[in-house]
């Protein structure tokens, strides 16, 4: 099934193409960045990082699919593995911080600030 008009031509912008996925990915990244900067709870900062990684994964898969190259999808697996390792270690650190300092607010965890 061939597309009637290419989305890159700009003639029919509602036919979904690579750019649509990239824009969604960019929007998700922006939302994640907003969360990363506004959240004061260390756990929710980790959660925003997950959202950002998810946005990056989306653009990886979009490029991979539209360029007919599976390398992007393999890279998504590596991203997921790294994210899993990051989350487990990060959560362990958060639990330890909560045990010792009785808080999860980054405003109270300022011993490295001077």
């Amino acid at each position, binding site marked *: 099934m061939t597309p009637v008009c290419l989305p890159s031509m700009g003639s029919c912008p509602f036919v979904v193409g690579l750019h649509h996925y990239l824009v969604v990915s960019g929007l998700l990244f922006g939302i994640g960045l907003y969360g990363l900067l506004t959240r004061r709870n260390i756990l929710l900062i980790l959660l925003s990082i997950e959202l950002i990684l*998810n946005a990056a994964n989306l653009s990886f898969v979009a490029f*991979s699919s539209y360029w007919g190259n599976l390398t992007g999808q393999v890279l998504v697996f590596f991203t997921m593995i790294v994210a899993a390792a990051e989350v487990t270690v990060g959560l362990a650190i958060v639990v330890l911080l909560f045990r010792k300092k009785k808080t999860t607010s980054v405003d109270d965890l300022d011993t490295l600030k001077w």
Partner: protein
Amino acid sequence: MLENVLFYILALGALISGVGVVRSRSAVYCVLWLVMAMCFTAGLFILLKAFLVAVIQVMVYAGAILVLFLFIVMLMDTQQMNAVKGAGWFTKVVAVIAGTTFFIALIAVIRTVRVPQMTAIHGVPETIGKVLFNQFVLPFELTSLLILAAVTSIVVLAKKDSQ
């Protein structure tokens, strides 16, 4: 045509869930919104014919990583956690400006991307496995080392203080 409609529904769902992640008051709701965002993104992956990635996304990301998050959120004192006050308006304005600027910069990059002829490549386990175990054997083995390091560090961190 159906694909277009599905794309808009899934993309809208993912974006709304993303806003839910960053705007929700309760930490538990944040995690649940992120689970929804992951599931919507998995739907987008299916539209992109990346079936294996979609399955792994739901199973590993939404199923394992975020459940781990949920466990930790519920283990902690939620009263105390919800009492963490949010950022001030200045930080919020800065964050909005940063996010928008980044998005506009990304749009500028995206506009230069050329769309090649759509080749329907199916990300099924067979094809992905061939790429993974031929081209990417060394990184694949190195990730096992990374996971081993993560597991070891967690065992060390979770140990009771012995001093």
